[in-house]
């Protein structure tokens, strides 16, 4: 199990990247088996980013994650069993199965958002961060998004708000070099960090395949936010091995070459971090993680699905009810 938060020792980081890797592999198996109606956006290859930021954030910090967010949830402290149940749309899930793989909101772990509307988590995170600061706490809010989302105007508007009001927010761009099938250089003029810098936000680019590098960069940014120093922007260069979404398992898209994938796999974060842990300890952690995944799978598969008549439970916080679509409904 991941603890309150993931911890930052070499072993902790290894446990996290390994947990995310095995979790996603299991999730893909479950997609193949037809248990996940939405399919998933696997983060396999990007585990170092999640592990690094998760090791720095506190449990009471807030994160707005993305559609490729399972790793963020896990690193931030979501219960793997309840996260997997969520992905399978079970009522025991972190969001009672109503969020699914794309929106596994988990307030117990500080996961306040995962909006389908790319980039819009940015201004939301600025709003959360503003509220946290108003409360006089040193809690921070982080938003994670991709290289494609940096082209969404609302995200840039959010950077301006964060800079104007010096909120304790950290904006993290996981640059995995593609937005679905589109290479980043085809759609991003100038540089990604240059956009944040234009608002006077400290912005830097880093290797996103090494948990230690991510951790070090994140520590600086989080420290700045906690001490009232305002927002930061971090870009991590990373890669998703499995493609954009599990539909690629069958779709056969041609937007990238196998050699490219192989080159990135050669820098695999799980392998890299694994080499930083004594072999025997590593085997223990692997076994521990496998047990967690197996237990999570059993828990998820044994959990109840949303019933026929439960679709609109929670539609309104005030429990307001709707008229049906047909009189005999």
């Amino acid at each position, binding site marked *: 199990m991941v603890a309150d938060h993931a911890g930052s020792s070499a072993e902790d980081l290894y446990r996290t990247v390994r947990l995310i890797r095995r979790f996603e592999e299991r999730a893909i198996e479950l997609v193949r088996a037809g248990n996940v109606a939405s399919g998933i956006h696997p983060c396999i290859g990007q585990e170092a980013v999640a592990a690094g930021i998760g090791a720095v954030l506190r449990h009471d910090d*807030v994160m*707005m994650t993305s559609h490729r967010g399972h790793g963020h949830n896990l690193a931030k402290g979501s219960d793997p069993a309840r996260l997997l149940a969520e992905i399978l749309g079970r009522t025991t*899930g*972190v*969001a*009672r*199965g*109503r*969020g699914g793989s794309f*929106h596994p*909101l*988990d*307030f117990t772990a500080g996961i*306040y*958002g995962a*909006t*389908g*509307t790319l980039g*819009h988590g*940015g*201004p*939301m*995170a*600025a*709003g*959360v*961060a*503003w*509220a*946290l600061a*108003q*409360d006089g706490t040193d809690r921070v*809010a982080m938003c994670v998004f991709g290289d494609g989302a940096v082209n969404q*105007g*609302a995200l840039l*508007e*959010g950077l*301006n*708000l964060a800079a*104007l*009001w010096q909120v304790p927010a950290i904006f993290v761009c996981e640059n995995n070099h593609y937005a679905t099938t589109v290479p980043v250089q085809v759609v991003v003029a100038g540089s990604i960090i240059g956009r944040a810098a234009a608002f006077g936000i400290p912005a830097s680019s880093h290797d996103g395949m090494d948990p230690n590098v991510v951790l070090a960069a994140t520590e600086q940014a989080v420290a700045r936010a906690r001490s009232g120093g305002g927002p930061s922007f971090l870009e991590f260069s990373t890669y998703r091995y499995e493609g954009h979404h599990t539909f690629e398992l069958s779709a056969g898209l041609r937007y990238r070459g196998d050699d490219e994938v192989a080159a990135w796999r050669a820098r695999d974060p799980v392998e890299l971090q694994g080499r930083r842990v004594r072999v025997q300890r590593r085997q223990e952690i692997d076994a521990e993680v496998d047990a967690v995944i197996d237990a999570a799978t059993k828990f998820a598969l044994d959990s109840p699905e949303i019933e026929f008549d439960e679709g*609109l*439970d*929670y*539609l*309104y*916080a*005030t429990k*307001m009810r*709707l*008229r049906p679509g047909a*009189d005999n409904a």
Partner: protein
Amino acid sequence: MPSLSYLKAINRALGDEMERDRTVFVLGEDVREGLTNATVGLLVRFGPERVLEAPISEQGFTDFATGAALGGRRPVVEYQVPFLLLLVLEQIANQANKISLMSGGQAGVPVTYLLTPAGRRAGWGAQHADQPYSVFGHLGVKTVLPATPADAYGLLISAIRDDDPVVVFAPIEAHGVRESIAPADLVPVPLGVGRVHRAGADVTVLAIGHLVHDALAVADELDGEISVEVFDPRTLYPFDWNGLAESLDKTGRLVVFDDSNKFCGLAAEVLATSIEQMRLVAPPARVTRPDSAIIGISAAADRALLPSREQLAAAIRRTYKNGR
């Protein structure tokens, strides 16, 4: 008894709620100066941290309000032009309004979206006079349209206290309305509960927003000839179907007087539901804007396009004669 203006009622509701609940704050353009009058004086009373001057980034600050709400606040976001609510429709309807469900009930989003200058602004051109409230109802966003100062006060208070997103349309053409009312009589008005402004026996006129006052004038004109009941749902969504049904149980005749576009507008919904479920002795009628008019380019042309008292009177007479 002091006379309260519509905008003053909004201003007082904001001040009273900010006084009562320190999680309430306002956010918008020119809110410190109080350009629309809704926020006048709040900066001095509550300071810059609770009267946030926003850049011209409506999408960004609408999302920001969602985040602030998730962080425990009750934001009131003000917009200056009707089309700005279309600009941020996705952030309200597809994001803020879905978080309760998407989170499995872990969180609500108690944001109030206040369009102080709603509807027509005579002569301000093609982009300043839309009335898109039906769109928010269609997408399931709670939506209110106060017609009087007391209702403006009471509905805005309820909107701010509601745990879901609520859009408040304050029709420009109601801003001139004044009401003699003692501050003590200003109370919250529950969402989803209509109001019979005038009792009548022959025809029910359902009017909302500023048109309530035109409906009352027409009802008076017809006094002696036809006994008209004027029903104001006050909230567009959720709609007070029971209140309407009670009125129709008496009159059995319905005319809907609505400032939105005809095609798929509120009046269409009211007609459809009334024939599906309510007592009607004659076919219901509607008086609205044309299918999808563009209002605002010319005062003369607007007169031909906006729902008018003459049209309402004629529709009431037709409906009254029908089925006799």
